[in-house]
C-alpha cells in the first residue's frame, strides 16, 4: 500500500468498437499527495480526458485501479467533483439552484436547510458570483458560467477536484483572470486538484507537478516535472523568472520535440521526394 493520497496504479484502457480494439491508455502510474496541484498535459487525442474520467469513475478502467484516500474508485461520487470544459450547468436552473442541487444532495443528512443555503452562498461568493444568484446560465457570460461550475464542484467539498480543460473555452483575458482566481482559492482551501490542459503557460503557472503524456494510441506517462516555484505566484513577475522559463522550455520541448504530433512540412516534403512519383500520387 502506498501512503499517497491518490494513487493511479497500472491503469490500462482499451476500447472495443465493432471488431476493432483500440488501446488508449497503457500502464498509467501516478501518485498524488494531499493538497497537490497536478496538471496533465499532452497532445489532443492522447487520452488525458480518459484518465480523468477513470479517476472520476465515469468510465471503468480495463485493468488496474485508482485508490483515493485508502478506498478504491469504481463509481462516480461527490468526493471527486468534476468541472467540465463546457461548464455543463443545467440551463433551466438559476445560478443559485445549480449549486444548491449539488449541496442539497451531498449534505442532505449532515446540514440543516439554513446551513445548506449559507454554504451555497459562501461558495458562490468565493468565485465572486454573488451578484447573479437568480440569473440563468443563458444570461451570464462564458467566464461566469465556468465560475459557477467551479463553485458547484467546490461546494461538494471533494477530496480531489478534477478540472477538464476548465479554461479551454474562454478568451485569453478571462482565462488569465480565472487562473488567478483558482490559484487564490487553491491557496485558501488547500485542495487536491488534477487539471487537464493544453496550455503550457497555464500548466507551469498553476501546478506543483506536470504530468506529460505521450501520444496515443497506447499513451502513457512520459515525464513528470515538479514545478518548484514559490507561491503565491505572480504571472507578470514570473515572466522574467529564469526557473519559470526553464520549466516552460522543458514542457515545450517534450511536446514539440519528443512527442511531435504532426510532422513538419519540411519532413513531409523530404518523405515525398524520397518516394517514387507514382506511389506518391497513389497515396
Amino acid at each position, binding site marked *: 500500500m502506498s501512503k499517497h493520497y491518490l494513487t493511479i496504479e497500472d491503469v490500462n484502457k482499451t476500447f472495443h468498437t465493432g471488431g476493432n480494439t483500440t488501446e488508449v491508455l497503457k500502464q498509467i502510474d501516478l501518485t498524488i499527495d494531499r493538497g497537490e496541484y497536478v496538471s496533465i498535459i499532452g497532445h489532443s487525442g492522447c487520452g488525458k480526458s480518459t484518465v480523468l474520467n477513470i479517476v472520476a469513475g465515469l468510465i471503468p478502467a480495463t485493468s488496474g485501479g485508482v485508490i483515493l484516500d485508502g478506498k478504491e474508485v469504481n463509481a*462516480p*461520487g461527490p468526493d471527486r*467533483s*468534476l468541472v467540465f470544459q463546457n461548464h455543463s450547468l443545467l440551463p433551466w436552473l438559476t445560478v443559485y439552484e445549480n449549486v444548491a442541487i449539488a449541496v442539497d444532495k451531498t449534505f442532505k443528512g449532515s446540514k440543516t436547510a439554513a446551513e445548506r443555503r449559507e454554504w451555497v452562498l459562501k461558495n458562490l461568493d468565493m468565485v465572486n458570483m454573488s451578484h447573479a444568484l437568480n440569473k440563468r446560465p443563458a444570461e451570464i457570460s462564458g467566464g461566469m458560467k465556468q465560475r459557477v461550475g467551479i463553485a458547484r464542484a467546490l461546494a461538494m467539498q471533494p477530496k480531489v477536484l478534477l478540472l477538464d480543460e476548465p479554461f479551454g473555452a474562454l478568451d485569453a483575458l478571462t482565462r488569465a483572470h480565472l487562473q488567478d482566481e483558482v490559484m487564490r482559492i487553491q491557496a485558501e482551501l488547500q485542495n487536491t486538484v488534477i487539471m487537464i490542459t493544453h496550455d503550457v503557460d497555464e500548466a507551469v503557472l498553476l501546478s506543483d507537478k506536470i504530468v506529460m503524456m505521450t501520444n496515443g494510441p497506447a499513451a502513457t506517462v512520459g515525464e513528470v516535472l515538479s514545478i518548484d516555484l514559490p507561491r503565491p505566484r505572480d504571472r507578470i513577475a514570473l515572466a522574467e523568472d529564469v526557473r519559470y522559463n526553464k520549466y516552460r522550455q522543458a514542457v515545450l520541448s517534450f511536446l514539440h520535440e519528443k512527442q511531435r504530433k504532426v510532422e513538419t512540412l519540411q519532413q513531409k516534403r523530404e518523405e515525398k521526394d524520397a518516394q517514387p512519383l507514382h506511389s506518391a500520387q497513389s497515396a
Partner: protein
Amino acid sequence: MIFITAIWPIIINTAVGVRNIPEDYRNVSRVLRLNGVEHFVKITLPAAAPYIFSGLRIGVGLSWLAIVAAEMLIGGVGIGFFIWDAWNASMISDIVLALIYVGIVGFILDRIVAALGKWVTRGTTTA
C-alpha cells in the same frame, strides 16, 4: 379517437427529446449520485420539456382537425356540422365564414400551447 390522433406526435417527440439529453447532463447527474426519481424529475423532464411541448403543439393542431371532422360525421352539433349543413344548403358564404373561424380557433389554440411551453421551458431553449 381524438386522443389517439393527438397522442402519437407527443409520444414520438418526447422519445426524441429524452434521447437527445446531452451526455454532460447525465454525467452531472452521475457525479451528484442522483437516484432514478431525482434524475427523472431534475434532469430528464426539464431537458425533454421543449420537445414535449413541440409534440403538444402538433398534437393540439391534429386534435382540432379531428374534432371538426368528427362533427361533420356525427352531425347535430358544432362547427363541423355547421359546415356540412351549409354545404348541403349551398350557402357558400357561410362555409367561407366557418373555414375562417376554424382557422382562427386552430391558430389561437396553437398560440396558447406555444406560450405555455415558452413559460414552462423558460431558460432552456436559449441556452
